[in-house]
């Protein structure tokens, strides 16, 4: 540790420690549950991570009964001993406070490293998968910049005909991102693979100080809430997209500051992703959700990216459709296909009553429009969809607003009628834990007529913000093109 504070342009090292009494430490650790705290502590004490998260240990030459008398948490003599201590805590019952105190005033009293904070923050993400709101961006290649007649360099355009898929190299990306960030703020980066999902998560923790000394760390980390200073970026495997988290907890004071900070970083990301002679930019894909699984389904490396809703039958990997089989396939939704799904062929067909027939038909229609998507328990739901209707008002019809129970059956079909051009401004917002599962249920109950329901109500576009014109979402940003 140097005695003089010199401004540097380097990134903050993972091993630099923050004073454990600073609010950022208590806040980051305090929101974890007891079991998570213990598992985080055990993670810190792992052989591989020990160099970045050294606990406070008893010096070897010191006498045992010298200073420990007044110490509530006597320091352990080796990391191994400490590990066993935490393992025994795992089996015991107790309060969360006890573990927190032990970490802050005991085993890591000399400081919690930035690496430790990053691990604790990620643990919070695993515990609360919906704690972050993610926005999906597509990485698209740019044309090389051209000069106009006056010799001025024009801003590069998006290269639509490019066949190159942008590549992502973590360490190179970090290096160039650091170069993009202004020298008067310092950032700490931590890359980690998501435990269950095929994602690489980059956590950026920003400190408003040109110095990277512990003093500047604790003083500047102390005064602003953690949400605004941490940005998570997720890179899905096998897909040129990137998910950026939105700060969720911004107070009125820190709002503008954190916004500009975030904007600065987001601006730097495409530049950091660019390679020499191969520029890229980020393009919004109009999908914002808290659900990472949904994001991976719609923007990840799977087949479902541009085949949502009823089209998902084309993307279903489970369906066997080998051309080597000569057996005549049964068309989807037919009786034979259903029998295969049900398993046993219960041949005795009952006479269905009219009511049963109606519900069966509604169920089949829902199956046709939604395919395998929009199930209540599938865990792939968006919680908010905003749509602007730009359709011409045609006749006095029923146009509901702002509830899940809407009836838009009277929407116009086909082309625009020229008799009047009044376009009422109608905004629709769907709220819920799984919006499209809710609409599917309404179709299955027969409240929404599934056959005349417009396509955007099935969620097949894969967008959460959009404008509807002529009954279709404009732009087809979700279609992957």
């Amino acid at each position, binding site marked *: 540790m140097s005695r003089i504070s010199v401004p540097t342009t380097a990134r903050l090292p993972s091993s630099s420690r923050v004073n454990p009494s600073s609010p950022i430490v208590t806040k980051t650790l305090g929101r974890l549950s007891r079991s998570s705290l213990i598992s985080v502590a055990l993670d810190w004490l792992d052989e591989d991570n020990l160099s970045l998260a050294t606990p406070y240990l008893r010096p070897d030459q010191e006498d045992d009964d010298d200073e420990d008398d007044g110490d509530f948490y006597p320091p352990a003599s080796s990391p191994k001993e400490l590990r066993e201590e935490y393992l025994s805590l795992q089996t015991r019952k107790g309060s969360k406070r006890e573990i927190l105190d032990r970490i802050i005033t005991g085993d890591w009293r000399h400081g919690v490293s930035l690496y430790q904070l990053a691990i604790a923050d990620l643990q919070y993400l695993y515990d609360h998968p919906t704690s972050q709101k993610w926005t999906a961006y597509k990485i698209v290649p740019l044309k090389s910049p051209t000069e106009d007649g006056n010799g001025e360099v024009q801003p590069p355009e998006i290269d639509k005909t490019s066949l190159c898929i942008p590549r992502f190299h973590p360490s190179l990306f970090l290096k160039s991102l650091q170069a993009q960030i202004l020298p008067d703020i310092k950032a700490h980066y931590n890359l980690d693979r998501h435990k269950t999902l095929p994602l690489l998560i980059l956590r950026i923790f920003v400190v408003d100080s040109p110095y990277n000394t512990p003093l500047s760390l604790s003083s500047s980390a102390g005064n602003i809430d953690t949400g605004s200073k941490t940005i998570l970026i997720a890179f899905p*495997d096998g897909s040129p997209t990137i998910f950026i988290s939105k700060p969720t907890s911004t107070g009125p004071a820190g709002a503008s500051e954190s916004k500009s900070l975030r904007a600065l970083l987001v601006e730097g990301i495409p530049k950091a992703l660019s390679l020499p002679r191969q520029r890229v930019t980020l393009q919004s894909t109009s999908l914002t959700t808290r659900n990472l699984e949904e994001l991976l389904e719609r923007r990840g490396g799977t087949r479902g990216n541009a085949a949502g809703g009823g089209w998902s039958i084309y993307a279903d990997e489970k369906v066997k459709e080998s051309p080597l089989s000569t*057996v005549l396939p049964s068309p989807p939704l037919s009786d034979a296909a259903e029998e295969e799904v049900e398993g046993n062929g219960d041949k005795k067909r009952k006479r269905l009553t009219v009511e049963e027939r109606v519900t069966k038909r509604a169920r089949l229609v829902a199956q046709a429009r939604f395919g395998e998507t929009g199930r209540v328990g599938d865990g792939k739901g968006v919680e908010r969809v905003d749509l602007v209707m730009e359709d011409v008002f045609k006749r006095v019809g029923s146009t509901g607003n702002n509830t899940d129970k809407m009836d838009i059956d009277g929407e116009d079909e086909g082309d625009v009628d020229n008799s009047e051009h009044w376009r009422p401004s109608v905004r629709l917002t769907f709220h819920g834990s799984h919006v499209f599962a809710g609409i599917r249920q309404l179709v299955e109950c027969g409240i929404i007529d599934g056959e005349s329901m417009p396509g955007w109500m099935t969620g097949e576009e894969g967008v959460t913000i959009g404008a509807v014109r002529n009954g279709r979402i404009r732009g087809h940003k979700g279609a992957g093109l």
Partner: protein
Amino acid sequence: MSSPPPPTLDDEISALQSKITTLKSTIALQTSTLLTAPSTLSLLSSDPKLTSQSHLHTSHLQQTLYRICATLTLFRARDPDPNAVDSGSILGLRIEVVSRGKFLRPYYVLFNRPWTPSSFSSSLPPAQKKWLRVHRHTVPACIPLAGLAARYLPAPDKDKKGRKQDLGKFARGVRREVVRYHARLGTVADLRKAAGLGRRGGNGNGNGIGLVDISPADAEVRHISVEWEDGRTGRLVIGDDGEVLKVVVVGENGRDREGAKDLLGGLGCQPGTVKVEEVVKRLANLGSGA
């Protein structure tokens, strides 16, 4: 002396049920074989129901034949959306992929014709009104479908007269990219196998070559990262036809040119001269020799 426990009723039921499914699939197979045989066709001419069934089976057989041999097939579908353009007509393109000796689930690209209705595009020449646009697809994100579509299926434009859509070129382009992608994926699996590494995530014992990990390093699987036991890491860049374009090995003391040469088996480090399959063979030989 212990005898195996007597089969319970549940076991028996499940055994019978599995038998039912096998028998059912056998029946289906026999039916289609019989109905499509030329000798049965002459016998069936009296029964209209059987004849229509036979026609169905024959056309399906023809379809599978095209799918196997041509690997690019077209079909028609309907868009269930009541507001769909062109009253919901959809043209589907089915792309067959064979990987490791098996037909995978085909990839689909579905087109519509958004410029058909006259009210939008009365100024367009009639030929351009029938132009296609990609509506939905199941092609993975690492295939540059958008770029191919922009090249071969451009949107109608009044100003540029000379442009044409070429569905054939587009389809062949997509298939080429998809097949290359799967070939590269298969090569990575072959490399892992040759180096004695288990499935992804599992720790292989290295098979004596000293490799601990081989994995794709980017979305397109053009870059393959290689890791050795002694901490060296390497990169292979594979070209379009499976040739090794570049190879870099970095050890503790900077670049390890000998290691790179060794990985390619002294076959020469000239870019593009070594096929990645030869690296697979070499690793397999090393593994069995060690």
